[in-house]
């Protein structure tokens, strides 16, 4: 009887919830088709080959290499977004204000409250992988020496994901991000675990770098040897659809370095840089133009040709452009 009454009452629920479920399923179908497509089997092969490459040593300055790769993708997204209105930032009292209205002083005032530097605090970020956007690889020389080092290849898988929870009220639920997983760097450390609820946690020590801004950011994880994580990304074959991340850092164009993001923001210089969106966009646009207009390569023999080709292809396919359409 109770169930009957609840079912009857459900008939009158808000139209917006019906539409939401309807639309999401529509999108979900597309995503599943892409995940299930045989065309994606190449990514499975990448993982398999990665499992064999246990002997690879990454001795390049990782930050410099990843920074450029991050920038390529970030630049595309930034280009797409540059004409959009400023994204909101949430202050302590949850008042929405524009990024342009925040002065450095404002930020300094707010940070101690918004980002507690407490060793007990956690900064879990729940993500729902949505779609494998593409993959690319780049070559590099071990020891960073073009003449003496052995040539190796790094392979990445770019995955679009949606943030499932607010992150310190700073990044909103529903924000879409790109994650680039490096596939062929393996570790013997048991650093990825799945709890009973199905959440996947990755040890902060194993994190690579991340670019972050208010609209999107890109994770780099140096270890994707764990098949269950990969399966989770490749169609949700693990116990749940969520991936949890702790402890990130991001690239600050202003300081041209990676800023740690441990237990909240311990160094807020990066946030200032992030909020200085014009500077960020200019930097990324310049970087992007350089990459597209030349045979760009960075030091240490890290050739980016394949990455560039992949990005070009993604632009052609309008994969980036379509992602922010609501």
């Amino acid at each position: 009887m109770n169930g009957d009454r609840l079912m009857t009452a459900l008939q009158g629920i808000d139209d917006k919830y019906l539409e939401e479920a309807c639309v999401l399923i529509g999108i979900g179908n597309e995503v599943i088709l892409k995940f299930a497509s045989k065309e994606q089997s190449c990514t499975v092969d990448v993982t398999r080959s990665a499992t064999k490459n246990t002997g690879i040593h990454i001795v390049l300055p990782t930050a410099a290499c990843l920074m450029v790769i991050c920038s390529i993708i970030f630049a595309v997204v930034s280009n797409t977004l540059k004409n959009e209105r400023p994204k909101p930032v949430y202050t302590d009292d949850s008042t929405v204000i524009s990024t342009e209205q925040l002065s450095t002083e404002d930020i300094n005032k707010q940070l101690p409250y918004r980002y507690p530097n407490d060793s007990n605090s956690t900064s879990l970020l729940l993500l729902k992988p949505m779609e494998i956007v593409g993959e690319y690889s780049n070559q590099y020389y071990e020891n960073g020496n073009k003449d003496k080092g052995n040539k190796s290849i790094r392979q990445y898988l770019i995955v679009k994901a949606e943030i499932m929870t607010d992150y310190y009220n700073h990044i909103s639920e529903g924000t879409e991000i790109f994650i680039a997983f490096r596939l062929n760097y393996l570790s013997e450390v048991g650093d990825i675990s799945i709890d009973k609820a199905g959440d996947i946690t990755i040890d902060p020590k194993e994190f690579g770098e991340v670019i972050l801004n208010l609209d999107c950011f890109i994770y780099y994880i140096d270890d994707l040897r764990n098949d269950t994580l990969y399966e989770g990304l490749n169609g949700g074959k693990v116990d749940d659809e969520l991936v949890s991340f702790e402890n990130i850092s991001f690239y600050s164009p202003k300081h041209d370095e990676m800023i740690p993001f441990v237990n909240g923001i311990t160094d807020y210089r990066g946030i200032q840089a992030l909020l200085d969106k014009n500077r960020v966009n200019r930097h990324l646009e310049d970087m992007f133009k350089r990459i597209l207009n030349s045979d760009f390569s960075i030091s240490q023999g890290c050739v980016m040709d394949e990455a560039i080709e992949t990005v070009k292809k993604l632009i052609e396919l309008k994969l980036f452009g379509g992602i922010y359409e609501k």
Partner: protein
Amino acid sequence: MDDKGIINLFFARSDKAIDELDKKYGKICKSVAENVLSDKRDAEECVNEAYLQLWNKIPPVTPASLSAYLLKAVRNISINRHLHNNVEKRRGNYALCIDELSETVAVSQSIAEDISEKELTSYINEFLGTLDKMSRVIFVRRFWYMDSYESIAKVLGIKEGAVRTRLSRTRAKLKIFLDERGVAI
């Protein structure tokens, strides 16, 4: 064709209105009806009946959301058909959903008689607003669209077990929510 165009066809009393409606929403309407009835022929009849209902109501009604308006009609007609067909013997997803929702309120409890359906709907709307998007979609897909666990898992790209777990947690939350508001006594 967008919803506005379809509504305009209804207002113009054009037969194409039904064609366009069916082209755009026919599949999901049949899915909802089949979920309730577990019988394709019955489901088709219910969908056609819902189309006729819309034909008779538009105009003068101009639905704010054509999809929600249509789906509500389909669900309502299908449930009535189900109750008519199964006075004694319950079957299909509708019956399963009722059983699951019954567990939300403990056996020793019942929903207070003086709570009207409208109030209960309002509580459920409020409750849905407290859920994260994924949990809400799963809940609505299960108890409104009456999708099977397998189907929800498939379209959302997650495991069936994950759907069950989330739904179980959501039902537990709903129980607490209703308890706190004195709905279950």
